Every structure is written in structure tokens, then in C-alpha cells.
């Protein structure tokens, strides 16, 4: 797989791709481009350890749904979820939008910088790529960072370091709130509607 020209779906992903395409009306197969690119990026991660989309892979997906190559590339370059360059094993996406910023995203970044991560770059050991992203949709648990498919929430400088160190050590830290609350329930247990009427 040197230049990825021989990229093919795995049998399971081939079935999944068919299923995705079948969601759209006939003649509108091009609508499947986003989930298919996502599927391909994940397959790349499974096969090579790096979740990204080399050009031949984008062309492969475009050809499957009869979409001109330039149209597929437009989609792939528009959304930040598609990586057009190889990234580290862990894609650390730290939210810098206002709610997270007010709740301390600067501290989260500081922790990342202190572990050698740089925005838009991959660490020399190939483990981490750091991106600053806009709202990840979990503002109630700000500040938030997403690592591959998992969200880490309610972060502080220390907990961010802990998450990064655990990942570097090959462990999977528990996703979600790092201060122990369930989803966005109030910190320290319910504050209202405590009794059944």
C-alpha cells in the first residue's frame, strides 16, 4: 500500500458502503459521499494506524458513486473531519470556542503544549496531532477535547495531562467528564427535583 492506489474496501466495509449508498434515491448516489469518506478514513486507521484520506482513496470513493473527482475533493477539503495529511495515532481536537474558552480551554492547550504538542502538527513519535476546533457540541461540560472518537470533558490542566499520559502509555482513559459527573448532570448530584412529589 505504498501510494494507496490499491485501496479497496474490506468485505465488511464494502457491505457497509452498499448499505450507505442504498439510503439515497437512485441517481442521487453522490449524497453518500460524506459517510463513505468517513468510512474510508476509518478503514485507513484500521489498516495503517493513521486515519487520513490520501488522494487515491478519495478518488476510489468518488468513482464508486460516479462523482467527479473534483467534487469529492471539494467535500473532503471543506470539512475538518477529513484529514488530508497523515496525522498522529491520536487526533487531539481541543475546542477553543467561547464557552470552552471561558471555562479554561487555554489551560487545556497549555497542558498539550507542555507535552510537546503543537497546533497543526504531529509529535515526532507519531502519537499526537493537535488541532484547535470550533464548538464540539458539548459546551455544558466545557472545556472539551475530542481524541479520535471520544470526548474528554470538564478538563483542567491536570486532567488533560493525565489523559494524554494515559494515551501515551497505551491505556484508554475513561471518556466523558473527568470530574466524575454523568453526562451533564449537576456537579455533586441533583440540586432540584430531589424528591418525588
Amino acid at each position: 500500500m505504498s501510494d494507496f492506489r490499491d485501496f479497496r474496501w474490506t468485505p465488511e466495509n464494502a457491505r457497509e458502503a452498499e448499505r450507505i449508498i442504498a439510503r439515497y434515491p437512485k441517481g442521487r448516489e453522490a449524497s453518500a459521499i460524506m459517510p463513505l469518506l468517513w468510512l474510508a478514513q476509518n478503514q485507513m486507521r484500521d489498516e495503517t494506524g493513521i486515519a487520513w484520506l490520501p488522494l487515491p482513496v478519495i478518488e476510489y470513493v468518488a468513482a464508486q458513486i460516479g462523482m467527479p473527482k473534483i467534487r469529492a475533493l471539494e467535500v473532503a477539503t471543506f470539512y475538518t473531519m477529513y484529514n488530508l495529511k497523515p496525522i498522529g495515532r491520536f487526533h487531539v481536537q481541543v475546542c477553543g470556542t467561547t464557552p470552552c474558552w471561558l471555562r479554561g480551554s487555554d489551560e487545556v492547550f497549555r497542558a498539550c503544549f507542555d507535552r510537546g504538542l503543537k497546533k497543526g502538527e504531529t509529535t515526532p513519535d507519531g502519537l499526537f496531532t493537535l488541532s484547535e476546533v470550533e464548538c464540539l457540541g458539548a459546551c455544558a461540560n466545557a472545556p472539551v477535547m475530542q481524541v479520535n472518537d471520544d470526548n474528554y470533558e470538564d478538563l483542567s490542566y491536570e486532567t488533560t495531562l493525565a489523559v494524554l499520559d494515559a494515551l501515551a502509555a497505551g491505556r484508554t482513559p475513561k471518556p466523558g467528564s473527568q470530574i466524575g459527573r454523568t453526562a451533564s448532570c449537576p456537579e455533586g448530584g441533583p440540586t432540584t427535583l430531589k424528591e418525588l412529589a
Partner: protein
Amino acid sequence: MPKVTVDGIEVEVPAGATVMQACEMAGKEIPRFCYHERLSIAGNCRMCLVEVSPGPPKPQASCALPAAEGQVITTTSEKVRKAREGVMEFLLINHPLDCPICDQGGECDLQDQAMAYGRGYSRFAENKRAVTEKYMGPLVKTVMTRCIHCTRCVRFAEEVAGVEEIGALFRGENMQITSYLEQAVTSEVSGNIIDLCPVGALTAKPTAFTARPWELTRTDTIDAMDAVGSNTVAHSRSGTVIRITPRVNDDVNEEWISDIARFGVDGLRERRLDRPWVRVDGRLREASWAAAFASIAARAEGVPGERVAALVGPMAALEEMVALRDLLTGLGASRIECRLDGSAVGEAPFADRSHWRFNTTLAGLEQADSILLVGSAIRHDAPLVMTRIRKAVRAGAELFVIGEERELGAPATFLGDDLSALAALPEAFLRAERPAALVESRNARAEVLAAVAALPLVREGWNGFNLLHTDASRVGALELGLVVPGGLSALAADPPELLFLLGVDEIDLAPFAGAFKVYLGSHGDRGAAAADVILPAAAWLEKPGTFVNMEGRVQRSLRAVFPPGDAREDWTILRALADRLGVRLPYDDLATLRRRIAHEWPQLGAEGLAPAPWVAPDVAGFGAPSGPTVRRSAGFYTATPILRASPTMAACVAEIVEGRKPQLLEAAA
């Protein structure tokens, strides 16, 4: 039909019209960048804001808003003006304002509209965005920092050119327009994006930094590179044609022209025949007009009329063809042939005007609901007919093709490369309400014509029998009856002693090796190389000429510049030569010659399209055609001597056809 009020003026607009169209009907000019009446609506530049009530209190983009009954539209209010000024300010934030070094200067929509809506100062103190240039091929130069992301070029490539190769990558401030992987755009009509681009992001590479639009003299001309007869403007300065741009004619070329029509013109400056030449002892030598005429007269002495013949090349105008015909008639000769590609049209039973015309008309082709191509070289033969077909296909027509499989830029069903497919056409074509067949001239053998004429193509109010010509001269020549029974092969079987070649370069002249050949033309190419006497003539932009396009439409082209050196207008050469040969042609000026034409061929006397009612040919007795179609032998960019002389066209061959990038060219040099 909704009625709306625009600035107090009440107008009734057709159903489905937009607010912008309503404003235009009321005589209001709406500034715009992304909207173009021949492209789909994008609504992304926001320059066309107007106030509309009822509706939200903010200004609306008029190009994308349907006009509705009772709307009150305001285009001149303070609010509208401020909104447009705001849009302009945003556009200029990232625009380099490098008009002094921009080729678009003087014909730039952004420049013009900034005069009306620009604030004259900037409040933007940050760094401006800069975008790298994108390689798009040898024709289109890009300065992408100037791009305002209107996406006209993207929409043109997809919708009109049928090549989805241009797109907008990345997003927001980082958005960039590019061709896929910066490859040369492989379209025959790509030059039109230069006209479409409202700013100087896409300009003409061959004429970069050569002229300002206001220094150029504009002359209305007709394109003679193919048989569409595109209406063009030749822009010239100091006796040189600098560039060619389209003129709007909805019946013919809409507002597009092909890349050879636009860019082949620099071939007019190269390899010109600018003085007569005479072959002496096997070698061509420069000569005077008198000496050239004398050698022809000496050779013509005593040659009987039936041993004299003439061939007519692809770019001849009506005037010289008539003069040539009159000269030959005077010499007692009748053999003049224009069909150099083996077409059988023009001879019984296909000798009626309706048999060699594009009967649906070019615009009418869009109404077809099923289209059959006999031969698949249409993208090269007539790129602007292909754009019409694309429109028809978008509107739901089906496209069937007999011929070699090629990318046509429109979905097509290939029926194989065997003409026997004509006998087994799909039901969808045979049962269509408005079917149209386009027979390539080179494939118009008698059996093919008979088979196509036997199809149900003609009915009340519809005639779908179309001949697709490639030569600008052809329909005019056929109307003049310049055919020899049996065509070129009959002529070759009984070769003349004296042969006139009117710009003939594309055929094998070996069968006429024994003939004394007089070549009349503009470029030192194959025909001139084989000639015994060369008479230097004007190229199409260097003479007033009448051209009859494939529909039969008569159009006049004016003279943009004078021919170089001793070259003269063709008909005047023939007129003078006739005198020397003892034949008197009864016209001394163009007006008299044109009167002579109008007298004998009234349909050719006036501009426009004279009707040609269908005359069903008697097709009994023809066998069913079979075998592969005849392929186009000429390349798109090298089809005529002018194109072969053009440095720009040579670059097209290298970079588009052979796919070499210019850096490599430099390295190889």
C-alpha cells in the same frame, strides 16, 4: 403572470422570473457578480441586494428570489445602497486592488461596480489573504488572489462545458478555485471562463500584458474555424489582431466561442504567404504578381475547359468561391469540388438545400427530446453544437451515438461503431416526439444519408435531419453547387491538367501530381508546398467575407486588419487573374460582386436564415450502410493551416493533448 412594482414602476413578469429579472424589465440595473443568465443561480456574492416587501426587513439577494404577485421592490433606497456598499467593502477586503498590473483592467465588473459602490477607503487593517496561482492549462492565466469566489467558472465548466474539472477547495477564507490537481482543463470551450470571470482572476494567458481594452479597435467578424459561424469581435491594434472575443447571438453561439476561434488568431502572424511564388526547375522561387500570372497563363494556354478543375478549402468565403466559379466558367470548366471529406451530399438524390442543412437550427436543437449522433467527433467538429446538446440532455433528452466511444461531457448511450446500427435504433429514438439526427459530414456517404433520411425525423413543425459540417465554407459552396459528380475520387480518377486550390491543405494531393497546381491561400502549409504557383491571399479576418453556417445562415464578416505584404483579397486576385487569362469577370468592387451573388442566389444575398422546406429524397435502391464510422483525422488544435501556425495552439497540443506541464517544456528546451 405575477405583477410587481419596482421603484414605483409596475411590471408584469413571466411566471418563474426572479426579482432581478423583474427589476431589469423595469429598466433598473442591478449590480451582480455571481449571477449569469446562462448559468445556474448560485446566490453567493450578495451584490444584487434589493428591498422587497412583503418579506423580512433585511435586503434580499434579488437573483435568487422568485418574483411574486404584489411584491414591492425598492432598488435605490439608502438601505440598499448601504447594503451594497457593505458587500463591496467585504469583497475588497481580500482583493489585491492591483488594477494597474491586471489584464482585466478596463473591462472588470469589480472595477466598474467599485466605482459605484466602493467607499474609496478601507477600514481593514489586518493582513490580506493571498492565494497561489493555479495552473489551468496554456489558455487561462490565473491570479487567484483576485478571485471573489463567484463560482461562475465552476458552474460553466460543469454546466456548459460538461467537464467537471474546476472546483472550490477548502472553505471560508481559505477557499480556493482550482482545476483538479492543477491539471490543464480539457475543454474545447475553456476560454469562455475568461470572459465570465467578473474580476481578473482568470485572464487570457496568450495575450497576457499585451494590450488594454481601450487601445483596441473592435471589428465584428464571423469565426471560420468551424461551421457554426460563431459571431466574434476581433480586437486589433496597429494592424495586428490581438484577440478575439464572442458577440452575443442567441441563434448561433449564444455568448460562447470555441478555444480555436478565440486563440488560434496568433497563427495569422506566422508562416504567412506575403508574396507570390513560382516553381522554377522544381523549386519555389519568389516572384512578382505579373510573373506569377504569366506562368499560369503560359501553362493554361490551350488547356481545354474539361481539363481544368478547382478544389475549395474549408475557410473560403462566398465571394471568392463565386469568383473562382466564374473564372472556371469563363475557361469553359465546370469541375469545382468542395467536399474534401467524402460527403455525398450535394449530389442527387441529396441535392436539395434541406439535405445539407442543420434543419433543427442550432437553437432549435435544444427542443429535441432524443438525439442521434452519427460519428462521435462532435466535441472537436463543433464544440458549440455539443453545448446545445448538453442543454437538451439536461432538459431530459436522450443521447445516442454511433461511433467510437468518447467522453462527450454528457451522458450518452453508445450503440457501437458500426453504421449497421442505423437499421436497429432504440425505440426511445424512433418513438421520440422531436428526434434529431446529426450526421457528421465525413460520414455522410450516400447509403448513410439514405438510411438517416428514411428515419421518422420530419413531421409537422419539426425537421430533425441535420448535417454536421466542419468547414465554414461548406454550406455556402453547396448552395453554389460546387460539386463534381462522384466527388473527389471521380476527380482523382480523371485528374485535370490545371488545378486551382482555394486554401486546400487537408487532403492528399498525390492523385494530382501531374496537374499544374495554383494555390491561393494565406499560409505556407501543405497545399502551398505542393503548388506550382502560390498566390498569397488574405486570411478570414483580413477581408470582408460572407459565410454560410451549417444551418444555412448567411452572415457577414468585416475586415479587421489588412493582409501582410503583397497578399490580396482572394476575389480580387481571381478577378485580376481572369483578366490575364482572357476572361472578364463582371465586377470591379465588392458591392457589385455581392449584387451578382444576390441576383443568382437570392437566398445568399441577404444576411439571415432563409427557410429551406424539407424535400424528401428518393432513397430507394440504396443498400444498408455498415462498417465503422470514419474518424476525424485532424486534431482539434491543428485542424487548419492557421491553427498549425499558431504558437498558442502548439502549446495546447503539448499541454492539453500530450499532458506535458510547461515546466517540463522549459526543461526540454
